[in-house]
């Protein structure tokens, strides 16, 4: 029976209660160590100087932008194929986190661009692809919120997440292609020679830290969403139980 399908997703609750402290502790540890290493210990770049430290915020944010989108697409598939209510909630909960990471990537990219390229915004292929990914996130969130019926919003945005998932590689390809057409290698590539271990470790620590932070934020948001839906179900149940006056 799934009358109050949001009233008792107890399995999720138990699982998340077990994961939560570990994820939160790990996130704090990784981000603390990673930031300390990145901002204080790691050497400045011989070309870019101190501004290279933006990389430790920027690059993992770009990873997360894609990683969260992949999760969104998986949640979308689960919403449409299995009609799993938890997947509906998860998609809704994860999208703003992914959009925030994407925005962080764009903002730090812009900040990094100023000393590197001498301009706040460069139509660099990667930055442009991330910008379009950000637009897709915005469309997802707008669509998710555009209906009075939460399930309809979740299913519609799930379709969009999947359409976006098959389109994003094509968009990435076409933007790369467009960029090489218009800007013959004037932009310095960020992936230069092999990265030195003293820079690699803080970068990886930040990446793991971001991932755990994402897990923590997603769990909190899913819980909040479940409580909100349960509240609605309870109010509805109480009103239905009362004799019609």
């Amino acid at each position: 029976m799934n009358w109050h399908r949001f009233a008792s997703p107890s399995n999720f609750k138990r699982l998340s209660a077990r994961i939560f402290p570990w994820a939160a502790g790990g996130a704090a540890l990784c981000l603390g160590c990673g930031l300390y290493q990145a901002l204080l210990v790691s050497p400045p770049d011989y070309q870019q100087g101190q501004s290279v430290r933006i990389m430790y915020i920027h690059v993992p944010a770009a990873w997360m932008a894609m990683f969260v989108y992949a999760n969104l697409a998986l949640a979308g598939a689960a919403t449409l194929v299995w009609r799993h209510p938890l997947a509906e909630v998860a998609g809704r909960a994860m999208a703003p986190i992914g959009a925030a990471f994407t925005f962080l990537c764009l903002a730090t990219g812009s900040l990094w661009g100023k000393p590197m390229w001498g301009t706040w915004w460069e139509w660099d292929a990667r930055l442009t692809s991330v910008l379009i990914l950000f637009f897709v996130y915005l469309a997802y969130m707008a669509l998710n919120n555009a209906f009075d019926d939460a399930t309809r919003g979740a299913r519609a945005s799930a379709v969009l997440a999947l359409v976006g998932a098959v389109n994003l590689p094509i968009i990435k390809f076409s933007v790369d292609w467009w960029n090489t057409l218009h800007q013959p290698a004037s932009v310095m590539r960020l992936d230069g020679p092999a990265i030195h271990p003293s820079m690699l470790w803080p970068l990886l620590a930040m990446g793991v830290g971001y991932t755990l932070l994402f897990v923590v934020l997603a769990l909190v948001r899913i819980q909040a969403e479940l409580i909100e839906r349960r509240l609605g179900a309870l109010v509805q149940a109480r009103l239905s139980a009362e004799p019609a006056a």
Partner: protein
Amino acid sequence: MIGRASFEAHDLACLRGGRIVFRQLEFRVDAGGLLVLRGANGAGKSSLLRMMAGLIGPAHGALLWNGDDIADDPDAHRARTSYAGHSDALKPALTVAEHLSFHAKLRGQAADKIAAALDAFALTKFADLPARLLSQGQRKRVALARLIAAPAPLWLLDEPTNGLDADSTARLETAIAAHRETGGIVVAATHLDFAGADAVTLTLGERKAA
């Protein structure tokens, strides 16, 4: 179409917007049968009809045609079902005849019953009139004439007599009787008494009233 067709529901439940509209619903209609749905506003008559048409899925239980779950073969179910909802689904710029012949083609049928459909609802003289010039009752009659223009064994009618005058209601009753004669099944949500004492009545939302 003659034979042992049956349409039934087992332990059917409907969930709309997180609210249970009805549950533990049971009924059975056999070939030639008429099922009349009654109940207060919001009791779920329209939802049940939409569920029967395959537009919404049951939250629980199943609808069976000849014993087979309609969800197992939705294509076959759509082919045998003709749904006439609240809205007339008329395009103001198309004529009455164009609506009927489009509907027949949409349902993969030859457009050779248009004249009969027009005649059944006294629409013959309006055949070439665009829908924007029709009155409310005439619009409803066009919507009902679709049932004749593209025959299907199962008719699902949501408040079919809304906006109809006495003469048109009588024509609808004649059409329903003729359909049942050939072994068709009719499910109608209505507050009017249809001719035929053999109709099965299903009242929705009784639990709430008790």
